[in-house]
């Protein structure tokens, strides 16, 4: 999977036609194979752009910063990224007519060690859903698979799970990198950042981390698209995907196979309801 040339051509064409102000893509770090997101503002810098299986970061995240706000933006999206973009469009955070989206029929990306990312192996929608232009050959429809880590953990006993997660919350340093790197966390002031916290818990303690991560994962329940930006950003390498994948599974199994952002105009699972929703856990 290498679309470097095509993306460079598209970007330079868009700049030449005056269709965009900024192009968000990837460039090489310059010393290893890994890549850095780059915001190109001039046609002469287009040659920096690359795209291959190390283009991991979800670029939709950049739509919330001042460099792209109220500007015409060109953007490269993979399957998972396009789902988050779809949600942003539905939630009226970005305007479709200001975007030029280059969609990728993604064959999966690799982590820093060169192994295929776990979420790519379980990916249901590898092809970009929102796109003005598609690159690559589209994939066949795939079936939703339950995450293996989740299965393993869920089959353990209550005390074992408690012990496992206590370690997770103890190692959280509350830097909030997970939230900042999440494309769907766009609130101007996050509720878990309240310092004068009689309501929320501002301190950098284990109980604070628990509160923050639980609140955060519940705000993303039914919206998370499993791009794993949060996990890549976490300096403690916490398995944050466990919380999201668990929620995703509960929602998929109980709420009419809901998956976040796969249809146009489809909002998160908590923004709608159905008469068929399970009721047996309520007395």
């Amino acid at each position, binding site marked *: 999977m290498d679309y470097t040339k095509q993306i460079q051509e598209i970007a330079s064409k868009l700049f030449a036609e005056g269709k965009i102000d900024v192009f968000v893509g990837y460039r090489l*770090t*310059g*010393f*290893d194979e*890994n*890549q*850095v*997101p*780059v*915001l190109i503002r001039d046609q002469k810098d287009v040659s920096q752009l690359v795209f291959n299986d190390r283009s991991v*970061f979800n670029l939709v*995240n*950049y739509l919330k*910063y*001042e*460099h792209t706000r109220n500007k015409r933006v060109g953007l490269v999206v993979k399957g998972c990224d396009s789902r988050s973009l779809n949600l942003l469009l539905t939630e009226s955070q970005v305007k479709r007519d200001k975007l030029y989206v280059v969609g990728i029929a993604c064959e999966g990306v690799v982590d820093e060690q060169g192994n295929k990312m776990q979420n790519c192996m379980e990916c249901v929608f590898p092809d970009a859903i929102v796109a003005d232009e598609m690159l690559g050959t589209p994939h066949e429809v795939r079936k939703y698979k339950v995450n293996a880590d989740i299965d393993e953990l869920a089959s353990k006993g209550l005390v074992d799970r408690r012990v496992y997660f206590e*370690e997770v919350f103890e*190692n959280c*340093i*509350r*830097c*909030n*990198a997970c939230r*900042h*790197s999440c494309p769907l966390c766009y609130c101007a*002031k996050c509720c878990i*950042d309240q*310092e*004068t*916290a*009689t309501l929320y*818990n*501002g*301190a*950098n*303690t284990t109980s*604070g981390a628990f509160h923050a991560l639980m609140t955060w994962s519940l705000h993303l329940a039914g919206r998370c698209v499993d791009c794993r*930006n949060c996990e*890549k*950003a976490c*300096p*403690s*390498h*916490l*398995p944050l995907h466990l919380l999201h994948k668990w929620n995703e599974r509960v929602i998929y199994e109980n709420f009419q196979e809901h998956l976040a952002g796969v249809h146009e105009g489809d909002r998160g699972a908590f923004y709608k309801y159905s008469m068929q929703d399970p009721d047996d856990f309520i007395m």
Partner: protein
Amino acid sequence: MNVEIFVTDKAGLQKFYEAIIARNETWAPVEKFGKFDFKRVSSLGECDPDSPIATTRSAKPLFFPRSAKIMKYTADSTGTRVKETDEDPFTAKRVILGMKHCDARSLQVLDKVYNWDYIDNDYQKRRQNTVVISTRCDKAETHCFCTSLDYDVENLDAMDVLIVNGTEGKVHITARTEKGDAFLKENLDPASCILHPVSDEELKKQYQAFAASFRLKMNYKEINEKLSKIFDSPEFEDVSANCISCNTCAFVCPTCHCFKISDERVKDTGVRYKSYDSCNNGYFTLMAGGHNPRPVKYRRWRQRALHKFVYYKERFGENLCVGCGKCAVSCPVNISIFEVVNQVASNEVV
């Protein structure tokens, strides 16, 4: 101070570590979720003091805890009462194993700010009660640039005891401070070592090999000088464009020392905490009236870069950066402060 170099082998070093762990409260790098971090250890099997991979987070939390209680209070109809907390987990006597040079150096840098207009007693206590044992790296990592900064890595006296791997499996143990000297007398079994004055040569050779392995080199004097003149450089806008303001760099940085105050209150009683904060955070400078002097990314990045290489240098005579590269390793979008300052400095405004 007379420098004695003890020479032993791998097995002797293991014995030395075991003796330390048995006798003292010891903190050492422990692997957790695939990364190393300083943790309290009770046996050598749990930790890896000689790990070639640096800890993801620095040893800063052991001196400046990520969340420290400052006081407890009760506020009810009878009035407000404040009680100082006396419980501090980090003021007991302890030993830190496996700290890298850069981490050890960061303590010297932090000492300046903690001994400045306000003397932080807790920090002083933690420093005095800690023996730092450092192993010199054999090879630089991708983002390391400690040799390019304003301290002498070879003759650094930030650590109390220095361990250097020599040739043929030999290990050299040296005390670098008087505290370290006393510590070695107490904990190092002289039977397992030989005093070897010749090994000084070997130390030099090891250092030269180490210094030659660096990918990144810069001239910090030039950077200091150039950055001090380019407050208005438009280049900051470019270098900060792909930053996502995630704060990771400041939380893992060994020298960043900004904090926020937060209250945790249940009913009438509360605790006031001092927790880490980061200048990359959008509301770090947000004031009560709603004004935010650094509302956009490039201003925050400018603050971060200039604080590291200009403001701290002007005030204390040292760079606030120790070249450990932890920020670049942890950055989710692979931004390196080395690249940023070099790029900004190379586009000097005339």
